[in-house]
């Protein structure tokens, strides 16, 4: 009944990544997904600062500050990994070579519009866009991972984004703390629901019409997904 926490949500997303796919995990919450990708899945992680086949964090004391992730945290390189420059890193992104990018978001519209960049309008800080916009436009499949509602209870899955957009019509699937929602040509379709939540309750905190998929999975409190 409680919304999924960050870890459980990361586990949920991690379990759904396609076998042997090339995946970019955006900075912020999506980074944690790496800890929950089953090794047998063969997923190969891309990092926009010039790494392919990124491995887990190094042991304490073994950090190499020339070997960092897009979040600027120390990482390792898995066997068969490669280093390259930023122009090739972004060619991979913009050129459609990344199978799935998982991004955090502030808002997603029913058409798949994405608002996820820090404009600085709220916090008085300088704005920052980084590489998320290139991913949003270029990856074959954009998944979003976010709390279902904002801290003030406002819907984040909306009819129209009110925040400045990162990209239009790009999000394919939304993983929230309450549900998995597919963005289809006919609108939003719920493909999985957190145990104990009904569609009515989900609709009540969602800013765009929802319908259910032919088959709806149930999400356990730990992020495990089970099909009927």
């Amino acid at each position: 009944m409680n919304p999924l926490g960050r870890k459980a949500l990361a586990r949920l997303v991690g379990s759904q990544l396609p076998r042997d796919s090339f995946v970019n995990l955006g900075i912020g919450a999506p980074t944690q997904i790496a800890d929950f990708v089953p090794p047998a899945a063969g997923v190969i992680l891309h990092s926009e600062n010039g790494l392919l086949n990124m491995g887990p964090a190094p042991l304490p004391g073994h950090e190499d500050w020339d070997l960092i992730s897009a979040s600027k945290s120390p990482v390792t390189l898995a066997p068969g990994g490669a280093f390259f420059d930023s122009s090739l890193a972004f060619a991979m992104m913009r050129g459609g070579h990344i199978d799935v990018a998982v991004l955090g978001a502030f808002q997603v519209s029913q058409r798949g519009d994405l608002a996820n960049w820090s404009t600085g309008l709220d916090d008085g800080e300088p704005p920052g866009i980084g590489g998320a916009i290139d991913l949003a436009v270029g990856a074959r499949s954009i998944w979003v991972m976010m709390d279902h509602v904002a801290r003030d209870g406002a819907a984040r899955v909306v009819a129209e984004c009110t925040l400045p957009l990162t990209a239009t019509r790009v999000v394919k699937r939304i993983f929230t703390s309450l549900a998995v929602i597919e963005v289809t040509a006919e609108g939003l379709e719920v493909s999985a629901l957190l145990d104990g939540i009904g569609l009515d309750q989900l609709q009540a905190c969602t800013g765009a019409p929802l319908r259910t998929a032919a088959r709806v999975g149930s999400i356990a409190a730990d992020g495990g997904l089970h099909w009927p």
Partner: protein
Amino acid sequence: MRNAVVTDAAAAIAGLRDGHTVMVGGFGGAGMPPAIVRAVADLGVRNLTLVSNNAGASGDDLSLWFRQGLVRKIICSYPRNAKDFGAQYRAGAVELELVPQGTLVERIRAGGAGIGGFLSPVGVGTLFAAGKQSISVGGRDYLLELPLRADFAFVKGREADTLGNVTYNKAARNHCAVMATAADTVAVEVDRIVEPGALDPESIVTPCIFVDRVFVGVTA
């Protein structure tokens, strides 16, 4: 774990069909994948659009494709000294789109990098400007050049690992590295396949994200 290894050239070109666009790496013989070139000739597909810097010299190279009439159109920078292509060309049996070499490689790069086009200073004021949009930036004229992509890219590497990471040998890298980014299916003929981790991650030229199939070309 990802495994890009296929058994042979026939497997590497599986799915190639009549009417496909095909990029073939190489500058002269360096970078041209010989076993793949022969396998395509054996398969006998027709109406190919071929993207390649040259059009085959003589013998066991792209000449085979022209001799057998597989190619409908070639997009190329220097198709001279190519006996079989020349015969087809004079007979009006094959269409030629002549592209300056730097523009050719940059158009392929754009296709692989998701760039919708680029402004080139090359060709302004010449026959190569024909049919192209001219755009002026900062008082200088440029031609708008459009990206190239292909159904298949066939290139020659030196070593690959089983994931599909590839290195090249000396000047055989040439057009291979960009072609390997710009096709729906990328097949690489190599001299040797190694385990992941055996290649220096600083020296991999084509990371495995671009590569679908690798195999060891049997040298005669």
